[in-house]
């Protein structure tokens, strides 16, 4: 008794080592298949080989897809390499957009608060209010800068992705 080869169930057995198609599935081409002068006819096209039963649903689904105009064409031997994801928008990009807007708004608000509290604050006495005002005033400009830069960086990313797509 010969040992049956084991196939990786994730892939088509037709493309794995040890696969032998059944004899009834590869009948010899009739001599009259070719047209005059040896020109190939429709019957000379390679036929799709039937697959084992466990792959039958996948074949039916593939044949049912409207994006395949010629189901009689054989499938490519090698799967197409995965294309890099050049999606214009993703969750991180949306988060960055929110962060950019928040930084700009918070920076402008901080600058306004610090500026107003400078005139309307408790005066020259040193305290937590003065310290907080100094910190907020110092942080406002970098916050606005980083927020604007983040927004512009997102547009740069889109420009680069557009370049890669073209």
């Amino acid at each position, binding site marked *: 008794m010969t040992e049956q080869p084991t196939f990786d169930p994730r892939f088509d057995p037709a493309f794995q080592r040890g696969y032998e198609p059944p004899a009834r599935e590869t009948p010899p081409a009739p001599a009259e298949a070719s047209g005059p002068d040896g020109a190939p006819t429709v019957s000379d096209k390679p036929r799709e080989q039937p697959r084992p039963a466990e792959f039958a649903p996948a074949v039916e689904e593939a044949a049912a897809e409207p994006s395949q105009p010629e189901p009689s064409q054989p499938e490519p031997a090698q799967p197409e390499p995965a294309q890099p994801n050049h999606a214009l928008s993703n969750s991180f990009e949306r988060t960055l957009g929110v962060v950019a807007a928040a930084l700009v708004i918070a920076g*402008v608000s901080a600058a306004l608060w610090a500026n107003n509290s400078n005139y309307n604050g408790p005066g020259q006495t040193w305290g937590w209010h003065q310290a907080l005002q100094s910190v907020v005033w110092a942080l406002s400009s970098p916050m606005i800068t980083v927020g604007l830069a983040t927004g*512009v960086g997102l547009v740069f990313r889109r420009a680069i992705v557009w370049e890669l797509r073209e």
Partner: protein
Amino acid sequence: MIRRNPWMALLWVIGCVLVLGTAGMQTWTAWFYFQTDLAVVGDPVLTTLAQIAGALALPAALVGIATVAGLLFLHAKRRARPTARPAKQAPSR
């Protein structure tokens, strides 16, 4: 022929608006503070706008100039790409 990148056109608009807007905002803010007597409580809306303009001026100028510089880098990379990239070869089997 290289197609026009709409996002780069948008970046040019953003960069020019940031730089020229900063110049305009600073000019208006300087004029406002020059004309306004700070001892007198003026129009609160205009005062707030002047403060916002003062807060935005430096960051906007910085990011605007950086945007234009980045665009120049992008244009240089784009122009150099057709000759710098090696020709595609058929996969060998």
